[in-house]
């Protein structure tokens, strides 16, 4: 009896390991091949080299795409987080009639398939006189990152106790003072998480971006996409590795810093 249970458990464990391998092995190969010395960038690897990263650094199109993606991601995070934090405050801290309907409306951008959202926004803003442009890209990225920010911030906000704010108010602070010196500092982790989320989603997006970007402007994902048209090159793998470092490394770094700060405050 106990034996069969252990065997079943061992089988599930082995299965899970295979599932994790399935998820990570292809990505690991991208990172591995980006350090390949072989000039065709394929197997077998002949040695370790940074030549493909150097090639990236000297590739003007790639560097331009990087600047575009960074600017777009930062602006998206700024706007989306501001809108999202304000809305979450209203939903968590006040009695709002029709709260469920409002929440549904606010997360609607992720309920609508991104292709449909992309088409609708492109056609409507074009009709208003805003054609394919950076402004259109920004509008698009803000609207589909907003629901994620709201979900993340709201989840954190619920756990902040109301009575701390009430204490500040009863001691004579104005609502605005209370917000900036009590609520906002407590809210900071949620704000940071929301902003990071918005940045990463924007930095990664290609589905909407291909509809909205003007000719000649590329973000990193669309640049990779157009490079793939030729064939897979080690340069693409190197670019992939850089993107992984940015979108995975930054959040991990952020979490580590947040933890350190929290520990300091705790002591």
């Amino acid at each position, binding site marked *: 009896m106990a034996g069969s249970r252990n065997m079943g458990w061992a089988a599930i464990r082995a299965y899970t390991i295979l599932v994790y391998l399935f998820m990570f092995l292809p990505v690991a*190969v991208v990172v591995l091949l980006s350090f390949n010395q072989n000039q065709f960038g394929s197997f077998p690897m002949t040695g370790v080299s940074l030549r493909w990263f150097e090639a990236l650094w000297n590739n003007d199109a790639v560097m331009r795409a990087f600047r575009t993606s960074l600017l777009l991601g930062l602006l998206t995070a700024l706007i989306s987080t501001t809108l999202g934090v304000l809305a979450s405050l209203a939903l968590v801290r006040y009695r709002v009639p029709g709260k469920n309907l409002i929440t549904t409306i606010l997360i609607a951008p992720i309920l609508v398939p991104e292709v449909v959202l992309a088409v609708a926004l492109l056609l409507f803003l074009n009709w208003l006189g805003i054609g394919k442009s950076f402004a259109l890209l920004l509008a698009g990225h803000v*609207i589909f990152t907003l629901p994620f920010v709201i979900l993340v911030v709201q989840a954190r906000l619920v756990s902040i106790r109301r009575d701390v704010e009430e204490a500040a108010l009863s001691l004579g602070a104005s609502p605005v003072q209370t917000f900036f010196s009590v609520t906002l500092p407590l809210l900071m982790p949620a704000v940071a998480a929301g902003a990071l989320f918005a940045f990463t989603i924007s930095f990664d997006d290609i589905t909407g971006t291909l509809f909205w970007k003007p000719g000649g402007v590329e973000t990193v994902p669309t640049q990779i996409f157009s490079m793939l048209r030729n064939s897979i090159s080690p340069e693409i793998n190197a670019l992939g590795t850089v993107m992984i470092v940015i979108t995975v490394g930054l959040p991990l770094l952020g979490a580590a810093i947040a933890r350190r700060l929290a520990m300091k405050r705790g002591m």
Partner: protein
Amino acid sequence: MSVEARERRQPWILLSPALGAVALLLLVPLLFIVVYSFWLRSAVGPDTAGFHLDNWQRALTDPFYRYILFNTLKIAAITTFFCALLGYPAAYFITRSSGNKLILLLLLMLPFWISYIIRTMSWINILGSSGALNTFLLSTGVISSPIQMLYNEATVILGLVHFLLPFMVLNIYVSLDGIDTNLEDAATSLGATRWQAFTQVTLPLSLPGLAAGGLLCFVLGAGTYITPLILGGPRDAMFANLVFEAIITQLNWPMGSALSLLLLFVLGALVALYNRYLGMSQLTKGLG
């Protein structure tokens, strides 16, 4: 103004920027393309406004469109099935593992942070003609020339499963984690085998999570056009590829509007059905 009136107004002031953005950048544009889908494309100059049923008639009766729509739903269904097949045992293991649950969860969240296009193209390194698998088979002498493994429907499904699996595992995990393990123990102490306890207690209780994950995988899978472009052949177009073709390549915006709305209705009907029977809360639980 009284304090009470201000209390009442404040949330709306806070909500108005976000609600305004969603209204202006999503809701009104959706209504706009409804109108636009009845316009006609003219060979020269701007599209002709009016009320023409031509686009809708073509979208609904053209056998090619119908075939692609059917194929898209089929691909999404197969993808969802494999996500469930791979995802359920993994989620179960994470929930019940005594040790590093946190690390397992963190690893599971990691793919969300790794770019979709990189995860999709990573399969070219594995399955391409000079990829890992072909190189391995060539060097061991199993084959004498590279096999063409890429650019077919199977690789599209593979790419989609790879992309969507974390959504499935996460949703099932959230659901499984909320089940009291005492229930399963109670069942076994009353004489059920572990398998019976699982199939009759735990599995039914985790169905909401499975359904939420399934819905997400299906809807996200059915709405993609990048995966078929990267991992599919010329004949593996999905419905969103038709939309992309109409809007970007052919610049036939009225037709593109009708096609996007058709996709929205089909997938929207699924979401509505789900909402009717299971409610939206399970879905947002998994996302948050």
